[in-house]
């Protein structure tokens, strides 16, 4: 049996206006490498990895 499937590159959720830290405005490495420091995933803190000093 031959199964053919067409695999596509998915659009980023950002095209749906959903902010994603991994592709966000901070081009740093450790900023996006974990949740330490910027604490972007802490719902109470409001940080979002925006790092003007990286720019």
């Amino acid at each position, binding site marked *: *049996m031959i*199964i053919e*499937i*067409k*695999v*596509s*590159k*998915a*659009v*980023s*959720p*950002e*095209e*749906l*206006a*959903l*902010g*994603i*830290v*991994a*592709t*966000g*405005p901070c081009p*740093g*490495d*450790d*900023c*996006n*490498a*974990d*949740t*330490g*420091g*910027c*604490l*972007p*995933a*802490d*719902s*109470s*803190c*409001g*940080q*979002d*990895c*925006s*790092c*003007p*000093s*990286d720019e």
Partner: protein
Amino acid sequence: MKSLLKDKIKLYNLGFKEPSQRKYGYDYSVDNPTVLRNDTLIVSDNNSYIIYSPFTNMITRVSEFPKKGTILEDVLKRRGFFKSTPNTIHQDTKWTGFTSLTLLLTRKCNLRCIYCYASPSVDGPSMPCDLAIDALNWFVQQNQRPKVRITFHGGGEPTLEQGLIQKVVARAEEIKGNHPVHYLIVTNGTAKRSFLDWMMNHKFAITFSIDGPPEIQNRNRPFADGSPSSQVVENNIRYLVAKNYPVGVRLTYSSKDDIVQIIRYFGEIGIKRIHLEPLFPYGRYYKKVKFGNGSKYKVFSPETEDLLAKFLKAMDICKNYGMKIYNGHIMHFNKGIGYFCGAASGRAMVVTHDGLLTGCLEVVDSKDKEIKIFKIGDWVPSEKRFEVDMDKISILQKRHADILPVCRNCFARYVCAGGCAVKAVRANQGFFGRDISYCDFTRAFVPILVKKIAVMSKI
């Protein structure tokens, strides 16, 4: 597992609570059409299945469920699906020091936000300068990362201690060596223009906590004397926006309010990034953690279906304005996380004004009733150093998506990693429990998001 059991016994001794038994070890995939297999989500959709890896951004659609061991699964594997998850989401098995520093400078605040978890006062105590400088020196000495990240955060309003912030920054610039230093602050937005200018000059990442147009902001976040704060905060935001400085806002949302009106307000004043989190009913106004309209509070937290509908609506409005909307539970959707929070996983060094190391930004001093659970160390002023409780760090490192009993079989475990630890504790789920207010939202949102991505990707 023996190690986890041992830690749980320690936790009971510390007053930790057992997570809800009814979900213990429950296999969510049994009755849920969405499945996570390695790095790939399988989402049932209109008599077919979307196969999508958020980590590699590959997507396809197949007509039948790719059961394990079938030719279809094999074909999908060969096309790049069902790969191992990235190393970045794996559990920390050793501790190599803190990766960032957060200073909770003060317990004083000039606002009286109704939902504030910290309940600061106008004349609350602040961190002594010696403690702040010792924390910075000690952190930099043990930091193994190429960058130094310093955050000034709540427990009170950090900009009320601007002199202390300036001293910390001056010292950081002295000792940074070749390491770039990043400064971040979460503020209520009432600081004087001169201090905003100073922060901009030092390239601070600035997040303003503001809840929306005047009627909402003034109700939720008035000044301590009850006077409205909206105009002051809005003017400061406009000041930064006019200088093209990147500004994010942190919006605490109650389903009492119109999300469309709120997003439009931020769009009109030039905000491009909104961080929306639903109100969590804990703090000075909320005596009991209860969600939804049935809570009897005038300003209440949304329940799952309401939050889901409003968040999807907010995404649509943001798109129209060219804005991005962030949410703590889904902002790592394409990267994945094993830990929800840097503080509650022992990665972030969070220092309270009274010299404790806390594993939670909301557990802000030695008087907090959850401090026994979250305290991970102490300042030793005579030696200008910090004593870290390694047993406690080891426990925190086990609050991982693959270990949490209520999460380890969930398809969304690398999206939210169990959610916020302190919210789980406050809602009587225990430290190893889930953030119940968000769990259902995340589990409902992920398949919807994947279906939207599939439509946009034309598959």
